[in-house]
């Protein structure tokens, strides 16, 4: 069944978008990621204009992160103080991202930059995850006790002036570090339509050195508020949020997320991370191939 998308100005197959949403929701439920990193490229591969894809995917990530965030809030798994700093950074990042978006669009390089960023981010994160999960699986197989890394923040972070206490995270660090992190993730949300959880979680663990019990909840809190800001900024600047597309993705997404969460409880976390790493690397490869293969279209039209 075909459905016309009023903002994207094209008709899509309703079942394909629903299936895409469900698939992404399944992943987000299983791995605790927003899934934007999959939604945007898949939408672009199905012929949706990149701007509409990124903007609508951001809207969908909001909905996908609601239930997780609420669960963590109830359990006290969110460092609201840290979250507020990250969100403030996220806001700055989204606004900078909006300017970057407009500038890149005007010089005609937005598509290349989006593809390169995906390749870079997904490639490096996927590679790290693959290595980490394989090591963990090997250790588990050999029966040895996994070595627990001593938690501490990156030396660069300690150099920053003006220290604040973040009680729930167990940190006494400069708020500038999370502010910058938040800004980077906000820019990514604006440009790529990703929540940024897959960058933020490792960064919070290994750069800020936050306590593991509040990392995921705080990341979800930040994603939730940053994607809301991004949706609003896109609505006002690029006018590219397609509410019908976002709604279709959400319907699939929320159902998939619940199923995924149930599946995840029964699986080995290291194996789950291995699967996620492979998926992430595949998307990165596809993006890289898109850059180096001769594209289907040499010419592209941009409306003025």
């Amino acid at each position, binding site marked *: 069944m075909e459905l016309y998308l*009023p903002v994207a100005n094209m008709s899509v197959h309703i079942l394909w978008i629903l299936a895409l949403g469900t698939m992404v929701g399944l992943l987000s439920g299983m791995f605790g990621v927003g899934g934007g990193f999959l939604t945007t490229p898949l939408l672009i591969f199905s012929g949706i204009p990149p701007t509409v894809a990124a903007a609508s995917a951001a*809207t969908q990530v909001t909905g996908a992160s609601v239930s997780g965030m609420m669960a963590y809030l109830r359990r006290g798994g969110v460092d609201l103080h840290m979250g507020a700093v990250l969100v403030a950074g996220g806001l700055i990042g989204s606004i900078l991202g909006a300017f970057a978006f407009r500038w890149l669009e005007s010089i005609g390089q937005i598509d290349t930059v989006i593809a390169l960023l995906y390749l870079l981010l997904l490639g490096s994160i996927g590679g790290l995850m693959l290595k980490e999960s394989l090591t963990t699986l090997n250790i588990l197989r050999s029966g040895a006790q996994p070595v627990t890394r001593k938690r501490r923040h990156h030396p660069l972070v300690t150099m920053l002036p003006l220290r604040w206490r973040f009680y729930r995270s167990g940190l006494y660090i400069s708020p500038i570090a999370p502010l910058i992190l938040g800004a980077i993730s906000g820019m990514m949300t604006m440009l790529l339509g990703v929540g940024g959880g897959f960058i933020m979680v490792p960064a919070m663990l290994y750069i800020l050195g936050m306590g593991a019990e509040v990392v995921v909840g705080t990341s979800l809190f930040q994603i939730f508020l940053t994607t809301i800001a991004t949706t609003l900024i896109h*609505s006002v600047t690029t006018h590219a949020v397609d509410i019908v597309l976002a709604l279709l993705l959400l*319907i699939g997404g929320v159902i998939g997320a619940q199923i995924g969460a149930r599946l995840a409880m029964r699986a080995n976390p290291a194996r789950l991370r291995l699967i996620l790493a492979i998926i992430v690397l595949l998307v990165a490869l596809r993006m890289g191939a898109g850059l180096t293969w001769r594209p289907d279209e*040499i010419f592209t039209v941009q409306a003025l």
Partner: protein
Amino acid sequence: MTKFVGTGRQAMRHWVGPLCLALLMLAGVRADARNPVLVPDVSSRTIDIKYSFTGETLLLFGAIIYPDGRLADDRADIVVVIQGPTEPIILREKRRIGGIWVNADNIRFASAPGYYAVASSRPIADMLNERTAAVYEIGLDNLSLSPAGFTSDDQLGRFERGLVDLKRRLGLYVADANAVEITQGSLYRARLNIPARVPVGRYTAETFLVRNGEVIAVASRQIDIRKTGTDRFIANAAQNHGLLYGLFAVFLSVGMGWAAATLFARR
């Protein structure tokens, strides 16, 4: 596809088109009393885009009325041109630089039609000479695109072919030399596909009667393509009330996520 190959075509087109059109308007189309008159019509004057829109087939039909009621001895041909609203665009060309494909070159076109279809009863090259076809802007090689920012005719030609090729594969530019059917020399009809991704706006459907290499009658009709119902509402809200639209999108997204969470949690 009818192809007009001609040197100097590019250079000529920038000024010849508008000039000749102006002259034409002054002179009128050879208001000869012995010439036939066209009575055209279209199957729909308005095309409504709503949620289930997947494109539409437009039927253009009409009659050729000869002044003394008898058919002409020699064959007359019909050409139908449907043109959508024009828009300014930038056309970018990708080139391989440092191993990756990036946009490397661009040309602006101030008036690229969002949709252009030409249907005829036989190849246009067989019935009109290049110059006449250019004057009436008949054929995909005779679009008046108003290019700017190009450095050579070579480059312009490459970009124009690129644009036409791209739009043809999207179904937005169409040239069909067999789409017009003429019955008994006096009734004609043409069937044209309007794809789902057409831009909205006012379209003109022009019908040309051609005999002996000359256009002897022209008639035009207007067609409005517009979004209706919720699609119109949504597109309008997204464009003109960005903040409210964004707030609504957020509300919807949060609401759905929350509803799903509580619904599933209860089970």
